[in-house]
């Protein structure tokens, strides 16, 4: 276990980033992120942990290019994801908290969505979508509409949709929080395997310490407004005792 500030070329780089909702300086302004510095190495799986309302989703949206920072710079692969939004087509995929499947599309058509944006030929994108649905245990459900699938199956479709584009950066916003623990556990294990197998850089937002320890190889705990309160890296060789120590440290930070 190491106190982490990763070295080398960062895949995701936040430098002095602040985000204020409302007019800066006004009484109604809300500072969601305050002067945040964060780097994520290529291939790293970072679990962002924090209490509800600490600014995790705001960081997520800024990295995704959906929100512009009020101050500071966000760089993904050396580029500004907000200003150069379209240049990240196919380079970044998102798994949202809810499945966010288009109800008018079948499971396979939902998985094909990202590939359609990349102008992949119909036959090729169908084959890719089919492959990812099979990998996630949804073979035979290709032509089912979302309403005919269970919550766990729908979330699998949304994971397949994110992986199908083969994006190098994966952003996940509490993707398993709406599922029962048994389904979430299975999907989590599958998810970690797929991320590792495919060498993705991932940011995984969660408010569960157990989930963060299971998924990440680095955990950043945020306090409100989003500032780093604890940052730790670990790997498969980290012992159970060390993991317990990390768990108790995170617990203390969150309680403080």
């Amino acid at each position: 276990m190491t106190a982490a500030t990763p070295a080398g070329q960062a895949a995701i780089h936040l430098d002095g980033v602040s985000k204020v909702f409302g007019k800066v300086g006004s009484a109604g302004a809300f500072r969601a992120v305050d002067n945040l510095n964060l780097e994520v190495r290529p291939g790293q799986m970072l679990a962002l942990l924090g209490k509800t309302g600490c600014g995790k989703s705001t960081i997520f949206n800024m990295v995704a290019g959906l929100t512009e920072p009020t101050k500071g710079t966000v760089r993904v692969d050396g580029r500004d994801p907000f200003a150069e939004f379209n240049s990240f087509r196919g380079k970044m995929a998102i798994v949202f908290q809810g499945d966010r499947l288009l109800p008018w599309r079948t499971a396979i058509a939902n998985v094909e969505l990202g590939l359609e944006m990349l102008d992949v030929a119909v036959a090729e994108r169908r084959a890719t979508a089919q492959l990812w649905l099979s990998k996630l245990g949804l073979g035979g459900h290709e032509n089912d509409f979302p309403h005919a699938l269970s919550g766990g199956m729908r979330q699998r479709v949304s994971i397949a949709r994110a992986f199908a584009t083969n994006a190098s950066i994966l952003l996940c916003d509490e993707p398993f929080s709406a599922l029962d623990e048994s389904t979430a556990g299975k999907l989590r294990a599958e998810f970690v395997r797929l991320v590792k197998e495919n060498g993705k850089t991932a940011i995984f937002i969660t408010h569960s310490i157990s989930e963060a320890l299971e998924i990440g190889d680095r955990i950043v705990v945020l306090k409100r407004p989003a500032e780093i309160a604890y940052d730790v890296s670990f790997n498969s060789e980290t012992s159970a005792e060390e993991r317990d120590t990390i768990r108790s440290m995170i617990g203390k930070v969150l309680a403080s």
Partner: protein
Amino acid sequence: MSMSSGQPAASPQTNLLFVAMKRVWSSIMPFVVIGAIWQIAGQFFPPFLFPSLIDVFWRCLEILMTGSMFADVLATVGRILGGLVGAFVIGGCLALLMARSQAADKFLAPILSLFQGIPALSWVVFAIIWFHGVEFRIFFIMVVTTLPAFAFQVLGALRAMSKDLMEMVFSFRPTRMKLFRVMIAPAVLPDILTAWKVNLGNASRVVVVAELVGATGGIGYELLQQQQLFDMAGALAWTLQIVFFVLIMQALLTLIENVAFRYRAVSERAI
């Protein structure tokens, strides 16, 4: 011990036939009742007030079989569809503009509300004063009377689009065209079809008034002729032509809905 009702069980085909017949009967029953009341009234009133439905049927057939008469029906249908397409295109564009720009919304919403408050008959009078060409007059009337409803309905549909789904599609960085094709069009289609259904009824009423006052052909014009002849069977026969058209169009729209919205979950418990 086995239980038996003592009667042979009906085959699935018989059951299906029974269900189909029940469905057909339940849909034609209201019309049968109205027809029966009309026929009974015909026994007590002179034919120019309540003509026999058999006479009306033959008059309907005559309209459909006579080229010049059927041309009047087609002229009215063309005017309704032309007006609705015009209003939908213009209304849809205005709705897009209003959804994108707050300034456009602030400027256009009161104008559309004002238009909505003007009676259709007033528009007919304005059109007769302003324009000479019959077809343009009717097109103008159809467009201005159905435009506000189309614009507001499309605007409502655009605003009701799920922000979560929109954000999800945006995360794949779509082009404008692809965003429209994969997200906006399917999301607003249910409201657009509802708008068409509602406006179809409105347009069929307005077109008759417009033709009655300002045209030299079409169902409205023919109705005026029947009124002058005090021919109730003819008036009913011409009215039924537009009713048939509306029913056919409504059935077509329902068919489109059934195909396009097969993705919707259906609850076993009705509202």
